[in-house]
């Protein structure tokens, strides 16, 4: 799915944020730099700035989420926007209203931004193609396709932990590649940032065909994949999306692909362990690792707010090529 033109304004700035695919390294770096500025705001005693005062943002969630929805809500509130949370299980679509009708009704209330999560791939793109010109759409996860703000908060975490030179880093993404929108967005972002070695580690049943074309090295043995890694990103085993018998058992998966302290010792001594959450303890990783000194899983949640503030404020800039006028 090509999203490039839809996401970027004619002047090169961000209009929608639907996928890390098709963006530029400059835009990703701008997101990370802006997030660094907003991280300062979220650490102050007054955690609020008036950038999006008077704007209305709708969290349109067609799929359950706690962490992503609350961090989007906090990010919007810290930018002083008004936020509506719409949980679609309990709304008019169950009465037969189509997605477009729901969208038109919300637009009639003068909404400025939609944050969309849906179980079907492509929903955020579909909405972005149908909104009014002043409305921006942020993808908060669509099916197996993309979860770009999660990928960017992961890039932000890596940059904070390892510095801005991604070229010297080895990053291993471990687990359920077949169902993971997070992994897809991470791979595009890591490649745009020129990461030295991007690896995926998973059983054959959980790796999509032709995955090498994304620019990754594939490993089926966890120990081989972890060797000398600087960063290990564990993916959640998405039991709710698994339709067939892809795994013998969770116990078997843990034995082969679960991250333990012993296996982690194969990676670099200062390895950073990440997980997008929610963790299945004892399935993807041992609690000792999840709560251990290498783990930055809770920092990822904190950084998620600053990264979402950055993406939201960048997308809300109007389409103008007007020269920046020094304000003195």
């Amino acid at each position, binding site marked *: 799915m090509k999203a490039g033109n839809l996401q970027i304004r004619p002047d090169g700035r961000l209009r929608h944020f639907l996928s890390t695919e098709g963006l530029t390294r400059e835009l990703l770096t701008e997101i990370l*730099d802006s997030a660094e*500025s907003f991280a*300062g705001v979220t650490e*102050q005693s007054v955690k609020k700035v008036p950038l999006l005062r008077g704007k209305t943002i709708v969290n349109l969630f067609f799929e359950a989420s706690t962490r992503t929805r609350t961090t989007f809500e906090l990010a919007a509130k810290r930018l002083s926007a008004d936020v509506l949370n719409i949980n679609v299980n309990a709304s008019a679509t169950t009465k037969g209203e189509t997605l477009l009708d729901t969208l038109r009704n919300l637009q009639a209330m003068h909404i400025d931004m939609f944050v969309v999560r849906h179980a079907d791939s492509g929903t955020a793109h579909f909405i972005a193609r149908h909104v009014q010109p002043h409305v921006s759409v942020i993808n908060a996860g669509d099916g197996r396709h993309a979860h770009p703000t999660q990928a960017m908060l992961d890039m932000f975490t890596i940059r904070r932990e390892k510095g801005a030179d991604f070229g010297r880093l080895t990053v291993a993404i471990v687990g359920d590649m077949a169902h993971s929108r997070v992994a897809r967005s991470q791979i595009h972002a890591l490649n745009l940032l020129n990461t030295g070695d991007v690896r995926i580690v998973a059983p054959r049943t959980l790796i999509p065909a032709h995955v090498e074309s994304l620019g990754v090295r594939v490993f089926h043995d966890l120990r081989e994949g972890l060797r000398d890694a600087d960063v290990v990103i564990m993916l959640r085993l998405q039991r709710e999306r698994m339709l067939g018998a892809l795994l013998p058992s969770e116990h078997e998966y843990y034995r082969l692909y679960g991250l333990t302290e012993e296996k982690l010792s194969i990676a670099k001594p200062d390895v950073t362990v990440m997980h997008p959450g929610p963790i299945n303890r004892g399935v993807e990783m041992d609690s000792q690792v999840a709560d251990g000194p290498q783990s930055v899983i809770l920092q990822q949640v904190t950084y998620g707010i600053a990264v979402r503030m950055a993406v939201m404020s960048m997308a809300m800039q109007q389409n*103008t090529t007007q020269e920046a006028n020094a304000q*003195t």
Partner: protein
Amino acid sequence: MSQQHDINALIEQMAAKLQHKLDIDEHTAMVGIHTGGVWIAEALHRRLGIQAPLGTLDISFYRDDFTRIGLNPQVKPSQLPFTLDDRHIILVDDVLHTGRTIRAAMNELFDYGRPASIVLATLVERSGRELPIEAGVVGLTMELGPGEHVKLCGPDPLTLEINTAS
């Protein structure tokens, strides 16, 4: 075009005027606005011997033209290492022009507390005000047209760059 001004002498005069105008005591605090205002504030803070550490503001998140010109991704964190409530604040900037920066800075200050008073000190006061804001202490006054600019370059040495309409 670059005109020679002795910035250090101007700062010296500003410090003297502030001392004359205000009773500087333990309730006084100084806040500089990034970037040029912080340079001037550092010099004034040293000369006046203000006890409270120097505060700094980056008003990028408070600008009123954000949706038009966008965000500078490299915003420096604002640091106010003292409580603002009941403080007498000396707010320092390099150039007072439209007054919008000062409006934004005061909005940000009031997010942190309720100061007893705010006095504005600027190195240059130029024409072109768009808001009812005035400086209490000024180093230099300039009449400049709408197309003309004055900018403080620094931090070492501090020089004024003036671009007059050609």
